[in-house]
Each structure stands twice: as C-alpha cells, then as structure tokens.
C-alpha cells in the first residue's frame, strides 16, 4: 500500500527516510506541535513550496528543460483564485473556478511557449520563458484596474476557511477554527499533488522524460516524439505550479506581484531544487523545508548568536541579523560544493 502510494519510488536511504518522515509528521501536526500564527504560516509555506519545487523538478531534473517562467505559472494560479474571489460570489464555487481556470491557463501558456521554442532547442525555451515571465510581471503590475497593480488584491475566501469560523472549542490547546481547516486544505492539497507528481515521474511517461534528459537524440531514434514529451512535461509542471499558487492564494487571502511573481522567488525555487537534489522529487521536500525555515528563522538565530558573542570583537558584526542573506549565500555555496548531487543524492550515496 505504502509502496504503491509512493509509486515504488522509495527514499532508498535510511537517514533520508527518517528525515522525510520527520518532516511529514511536523507538517501534518504543525498547528498542534508549533502553535502560533507565525510557525503555522511557515509550515503552510513549506507545504506550498514543496509542491512548487517538485513541479519544477519535473521539468528541470527529470526532463532537463530550464524554465524561468515557473513563478509566472505560480502567479497565474494565485491570481486565478484572487480574481475569481473578488468578482464572484463568496464561496467555494469561486475557489474551484479560480483554481481550475488558473491551472488551465498555465498549462495553455506552457503549451504555447513550448510549441514555439522547444521545437528548435531546449535552450530557447529558457530564453523565451524568461522574456514571457518578465513581460507578464510588468503587465500585472501595470494593469492595476484588473490586478490591483503593485498593491495586489485582497479578497474574501469562504468563511469556513477564516479564523472567524469556529467549530467546537479547543483541541490540545489549539482553537478549532477556519484557519486550522485552511491549513489542512493546503497540507492535503500539497500532499496529494506531490504524490501525483511522484506517480508521474515513475510512470512510463516519466521514464521517457528521463530518457530525453539523458539523450534526446536517441530517444527520438527509438520512436519517441521528443517535442511532444517535452511540451507535455512543461504543461503538467505549469498546471501543478498554478495549483500551488492557488493554495498560496487561499492561504494568504492576498496576492501581489512581490509575493507570487517576483524573480526572487524563481531564484529561490532554482536553489531549492539544486540543494535538495535534482531529479529525485524528495529533493524538493528537503530543499524547500530547509530554505523556508532558513528564510524565516535564520535572522532570529543570528540575533541570538550575535548576542552571545557580544564581548568578542568583530564577531557580533558578522553575526548581526542584517547579514543573514550573506550567511544564506555562504550556506548555499557550501552545500552545492559538498553535495553536487544535492542532499538527497548525497544521502543515497552513503547507503
């Protein structure tokens, strides 16, 4: 049963299994294990980014296509929900319409970009995605009538998913309200889609993608239409990225260019895939968890550290919370240097 759920693709390393189980448990019970608005928010972000990074791994790690439009697809999903919620009657209907239309639009956009660029060479896909993504980001911030411009959009989601909705009293000291339900929508949504991705990469289709990554010339020569598979992978990846965006929009009840479309997020995704391990799916789990936790808590950790070494010269300056980006950078350089195949690749080697 479990093997089937994971599509026969087991972690293949004891330590990796332990880490993955720990992450799963922490995320599944986050509202109870780490009560507090900020920690639950971090947990929800981790769920969403795991899904987003895993969908990126499908194109980058499995198919060998570099895309810079992944945040655009993420944004399409998020804005889909935002627009549906602001223009339709408040309720689950708007969420469903927004989510589905976001996924369809994202897949369609990936299909068009793929059709025009993947035919030539995979590198053109990278360039065209970059151009299209920048254009869309500018468009979204300019079309303020529709998208709210730089300010973004605030909207109402169904009351059942907001803190105002209360059912029952408390469980283990946690208030049973709509925010808790919202968290579990995000958690189970991300979990199911992650398992779907795991199935796709282990299906006959997934094997063809890996063959194309390894040797597209030969894949064509044994009878696979490489362009059709590359485009297919790009569409699936885009659709799932959009679904991740929808979950994000449902969680935040706000979308804006900075939160869902910025190029910084694209770079973050790229780093998460590489640090976790490309072409492994589980790398997305590790990479996203590490990264989001570091983003949220590294500054505080440094505050404590710099306080602890107050009497030593120079060190407090180096450890000042303002330097957190520098330390994040150093951590990444080290991890890429020591784990060129990512953390998952490294753990699998040891076993």
């Amino acid at each position: 049963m479990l093997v089937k759920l994971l599509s026969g693709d087991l972690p293949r390393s004891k330590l990796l299994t332990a880490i993955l189980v720990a992450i799963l448990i922490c995320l599944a019970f986050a509202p109870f294990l780490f009560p507090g608005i900020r920690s639950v928010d971090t947990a929800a972000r981790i769920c969403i980014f795991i899904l987003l990074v895993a969908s990126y791994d499908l194109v980058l790690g499995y198919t060998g296509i570099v895309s810079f439009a992944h945040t655009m697809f993420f944004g399409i999903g998020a804005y889909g929900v935002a627009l549906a919620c602001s223009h339709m009657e408040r309720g689950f209907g708007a969420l469903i319409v927004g989510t589905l239309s976001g996924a369809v639009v994202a897949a369609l956009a990936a299909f068009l970009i793929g059709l025009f660029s993947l035919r030539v060479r995979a590198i053109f896909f990278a360039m065209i995605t970059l151009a299209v993504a920048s254009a869309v980001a500018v468009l979204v911030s300019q079309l303020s009538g529709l998208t709210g411009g730089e300010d973004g959009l605030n909207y109402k989601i169904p009351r059942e998913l907001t803190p105002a909705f209360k059912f029952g009293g408390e469980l283990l000291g946690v208030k049973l309200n709509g925010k808790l339900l919202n968290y579990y929508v995000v958690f189970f949504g991300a979990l199911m889609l992650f398992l779907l991705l795991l199935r796709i990469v282990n299906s006959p289709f997934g094997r063809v993608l890996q063959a194309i990554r390894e040797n597209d010339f030969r894949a064509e020569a044994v009878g696979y239409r490489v362009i059709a598979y590359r485009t297919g992978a790009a569409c699936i990846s885009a659709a799932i990225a959009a679904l991740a965006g929808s979950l994000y929009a449902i969680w935040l009840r706000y979308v804006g260019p900075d939160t869902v479309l910025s190029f910084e997020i694209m770079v973050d995704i790229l780093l998460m895939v590489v640090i976790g391990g490309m072409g492994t799916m589980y790398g997305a789990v590790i990479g996203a968890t590490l990264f989001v936790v570091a983003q949220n808590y590294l500054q505080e950790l440094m505050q404590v550290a710099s306080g602890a070494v107050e009497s030593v010269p120079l060190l407090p300056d180096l450890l000042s919370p303002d330097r957190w980006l520098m330390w994040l950078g150093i951590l990444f350089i080290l991890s890429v240097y020591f784990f060129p195949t990512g953390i998952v690749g490294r753990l699998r080697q040891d076993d």
Partner: protein
Amino acid sequence: MSRVLLQTHDLTVRFGGHVAVDHVSCSFRAGELTAIVGPNGAGKTTYFNLISGQIPASEGKVELNGRDITRMSVSQRCERGIGRAFQLTNLFPNLSVLENVRLVIQAKAKMGFNLFSMAESHSEVTDRAISVLEKVRLYDLREQKVSELSHGNQRKLEVAMLIALDPLVYMFDEPTAGMSVDEAPVVLDLIAELKAEKDRTILLVEHKMDVIRTLADRIIVLHNGALAADGDPAEVMASDVVQEAYMGKELEDV
C-alpha cells in the same frame, strides 16, 4: 525473389559544396543481409543517417514498403519500421541496462503517454526486455547503470536495443567494433538469427572481411559517396573496384 522492403532513389546529400552521398539508388529485400563497405569517409554512416532520418536529404527519396518516408521525422520512421544501432555508442547513460531496453519496448507498445501507472507494473514490457537481455547475455548486468558498463557490453546493449525494437529494417553500424573476441560471436550469431527470420532486411556497415564473408548475401561499395559496386559478395570482393576502393587507393589508377 522476396519483396523489396527498403528503397533509395537518387538519394543525395550535400554539405556546402561537398557531396557526401551522391545519387545512391538501391533496393533491399526481405531476408537479405547487405554489407555496406567503403573506405573511411565514403559516406556509409551518412547514407545510414539519410535512411533513418537524422540528416534530411538534399535530393532523392527513401521508400519503406513502397511508402515515401523522405519527409518523415526520425521517430515517425522508427514507428514505421526503421531501426538503427549506432556506431558510436549512444545510450541513456544514467539509466539501468534494463531500463534502456524497456524504453525501446515501451516506445513500440506506444505506452509513452501513460502517466498514471507505475512503469514497473507493466510486466509484459519488462518480461520482453529481460528476454532480449538474456539473448545478448546481459541479463546479469540488468540493474547496472549503463555508464558503468564496459565498452564491449555497451556495444552489446546497443544491439539489444535494436533487437528489442524489432524493426523491418535493421541497420547495424559496425556492431562488433571494440568488442573482445569472445563477445563478438554472440552478436554475430544474433545477426545471423535475424537473417534467418526472412521477413526483415539487414543493412550492415562493416570493416571486418571475415564477418562480411560469413554473413553477407550481397555487398554494396560506396566510394566518395557514390555507389561503386553492388552484387554477390564473392564477385564484388574479387573485383578491382573493391580491391582498390576498399584498400583506400585511388580509383583512377584502376
């Protein structure tokens, strides 16, 4: 005579001013093994590339079973029955031996767009892949990564993938190059077996004379891209044109 499976009409390709394959017209029949010989640079591999579609023809036609396939892509030709093993090993290096063969069978079964089943659950594909690996004696290495195989075994896998494809036209480009003395006979026996099946045609680019002597029903000689001789092995091998062309001497001297 058996029926014609593959035909080329005035097949030509030019790279800039250089004519690499020059109006080659030839028919290949079912059950026939044709050796293609000629000095290095004579256009043997380019001729193969034109048939299997890696290079588009400048002029002329390729017909498979009477159907014009000249404008088709590599994968379309493959679906219709053109199978090719490559001279320089050309595999999926980070996948297992078994997976390499499975991918070929899966392509033939048109299962590539099956997204929601586990690849391993299709036992008919795996079983067939295993039987092919047993034939080429790679079964014991099936779980190895291809990049970790010896050169000889990679060559065998190359042949195994062509056998797994089971095409109408088998194209072997120096299948035994770089193989050890005890590995080569395994591959040559397999080629002889394919020939005995009678409903396929086999094209073989080969330098080793003893191989040609034992296997070939017919030899065609390419020289500077043009067809220099075509016929019964004994005759062609004895002819002056082959002696000269194959030894790499100037044809004009004959």
